[in-house]
């Protein structure tokens, strides 16, 4: 198969970037998207040009390293896959494919297609953890958890933190990412203890870092490679509202009751 690629090239964080066209030919329909980019990079090296830089690692859809905004969609046109799981059979022969980095104020570009996603870590650092009982190794039996709850918590914990939800969102909101972590921990008894405090801290941090608000387009759920549901956003909002109201009631500065 043959393709025309329009790729965002940018030397470093400060440099001005732009789209550059390349053509690749003789690509097998069974090659993965990254194997196709490897072919392009080999070509560029042969011509003495700088290869295109992109993030990848496990190439099996679990580590969350890969990104790419392909033809205007995070992780490309196929639902429920990461870019590394995308194959060229999903494109038409001769197609022009545009490849851009994630676009969000909170994800600055490092080089070419690589963005800095450490903002997501900072949100987790603000409260996305369990701190009760982690002082030592307890010898007692494990905490009993209903199967339905552990299954629901696991579904939320399937988030790989790739940031596709942010890239898909018109407001570059990180609601789905934060919602998944809030739900995962709030659904488990050991995480419930500090659930109220957690959601307040994480949402505050998310806002500070420049992520936008939610306008309920559900684009995040549609583009999430791991099928994380927007129900997690609803749960986060519920947790947030009830926590915020309680905080207000108990705060000496706002008067309250």
């Amino acid at each position, binding site marked *: 198969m043959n393709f025309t690629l329009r790729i965002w090239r940018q030397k470093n964080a400060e440099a001005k970037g732009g789209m550059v066209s390349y053509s690749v030919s003789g690509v097998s329909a069974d090659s993965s998207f990254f194997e196709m980019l490897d072919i392009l990079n080999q070509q560029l090296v042969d011509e003495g040009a*700088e290869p295109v830089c992109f993030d990848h690692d496990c190439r099996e859809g679990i580590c969350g390293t890969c990104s790419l905004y392909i033809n205007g969609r995070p992780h490309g046109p196929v639902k429920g896959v990461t870019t590394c799981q995308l194959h060229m059979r999903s494109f038409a022969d001769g197609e022009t494919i545009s490849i851009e980095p994630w676009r969000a104020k909170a994800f600055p570009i490092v080089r070419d297609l690589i963005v800095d996603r450490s903002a997501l870590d900072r949100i987790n650092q603000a409260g996305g953890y*369990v701190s009760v009982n982690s002082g030592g190794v307890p010898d007692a039996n494990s905490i009993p958890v209903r199967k339905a709850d552990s299954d629901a918590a696991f579904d939320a914990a399937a988030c790989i933190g790739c940031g596709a939800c942010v890239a898909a969102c018109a407001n570059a909101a990180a609601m789905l990412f934060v919602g998944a972590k809030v739900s995962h921990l709030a659904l488990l008894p050991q995480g419930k203890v500090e659930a109220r405090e957690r959601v307040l801290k994480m949402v505050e941090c998310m806002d500070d870092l420049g992520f936008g608000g939610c306008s309920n387009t559900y684009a995040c759920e549609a583009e999430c490679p791991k099928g994380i549901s927007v129900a997690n956003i609803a749960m986060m909002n519920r947790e947030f509202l009830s926590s915020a109201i309680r905080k207000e009631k108990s705060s000496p500065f706002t008067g309250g009751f």
Partner: protein
Amino acid sequence: MRFERMKPFDIIIVGGGGGGLYAAMEAMKTNPSLKIAVLSKVYPNRSHTSAAQGGANAALANKAKDDSVEMHIFDTIKGSDYLADQDAVDILCSEAPKIIRELDNMGTPWSRLDDKTIAQRPFGGAGRPRCCYCADKTGHTILQTLYEQCLKKGVVFFNEYFALNLSVSGSRMKGLIAMDMKTGKIEGLSARTVIFATGGYAKMYWNRSSNAAGNSGDGQAIAYRAGIPLKDMEFVQFHPTGLRKSGLLVTEGARGEGGYLVNSLGERFMARYAPEKMELGPRDLVSRSVETEILEGRGFESPAGKYMHLDLTHLGADLIKSRLPQIREMSMYFEGVDPIEEPIPIRPTAHYSMGGIDTDNFGRTVMEGVYAAGECACVSVHGANRLGGNSLLDILVFGRIAGHAAAEEARNFEPGNISEEEVRESAEEIRNYMKPAGHFERYGALREELGQTLANNVGIYREASLLQKGMSDIEELRERFKKVRVFDTSDVFNTNLLQVLELRNMLDLSETVAAGAYAREESRGSHTRTDFPNRDDEKWHKHTLAALEGGKLALGEKPVTMGRYELQERTY
């Protein structure tokens, strides 16, 4: 951050996977006043621990009420073909239940049984179902939990830093020289202690490997170049079920849930090799069985090579969707096969490094202040063959122990001073790869050829003539590597340079793998010599050591620590 870096670190942990993060968390708990950093070439939550699907063994006795720590110990020693050190296995299995519960307390969403206890599934080589899991994303969820804890506890992270070399003067380690991948700047980070937790080296088998691109054995190669011996490097585990084209792993859980291995005659051929355990025999045995079936002409043919079937169709759509969702996803995307309807095409794939940096039971190496834990270390708990579900356990248990030991001992060591000149030399060495004069070899070709020769000559079945060929190929590749060229000369995120540096590490280590395999004239665990088909306890019941002496590889040996269990023939 600038100011922070000028002061020496008490502990620098190289690698941010499960082992490194557990070490960091435990060290922080042991002494919160210590300055602890994790340095990782990827964001820690991207580490290869995330790809561990199956789970971690612990004798919780939730599923089989008569399970015990003692049975776990025996299964592990027998599985290792009696090459594991029995005191280390005691620690591994005794600590296991505590580790599972600690993770539970921190929010890891373990799958549950109807009685609300943690679910357990059967795994190869284990006498009872004792593998605790989070569906088929166990490593991923554990890694998230540990990363959250480290972020919360204030561990300093050097993310997207590539470790280059240890700085050593005499017998004393002074710190680490590393490159900031985002700027290309080489930095000297002085430290009282360094813990290597960089994972395995099986990516040297390239597309006949289940490992991520980054599993190039960086920690082992750095330790080896600094004169620290590596142990049992010839033991590379081949997992029986890699996807045909890419080598990506189909978890053993697929067989644990009841999947069949079937040849082109439609036979469940494991009946010939392990009549009792069938598909749930230990990995070395099942891999050899698949390879034998292929060699004897009972495989399926395809342009991507010969393969076998892993048949899950009889398990039904509900079970596959609920318990093996990731496997279904992978075989659909990478092989175009839906396991609900058709068998998955598989063949053995290089999967795990039993060998690694030689350590004692506390993760200490022979060099003061240098520790290692997890897959990059060799304590040894896996001996000649690792059991499924024991690798996540190994990184958690020994990551924790090494973190604790380093935290207790760090203040006994004086931090060293890394000179400007040392840093400059490292930078110089790297810039050399970019010089056009005399540099024309491409890393892609070298990497491909290394994988080929290893798979063909240092693979599942080995013999003297093949190993000699492998060794001479590796020597030739190492010569050609001296002329390798980095074409991208930019400082910012130079992926071309990083791949060349990883290849250097893989080449250094491949020599120790092939040399160890050539020296060990017996068959034990994953190491099968067709010219020496039997286990030879008299000559070879010992560990091999590989160390760099005067720029050359020198092989040595070390006795195996025995305990309650005497040597026995290993049958399943």
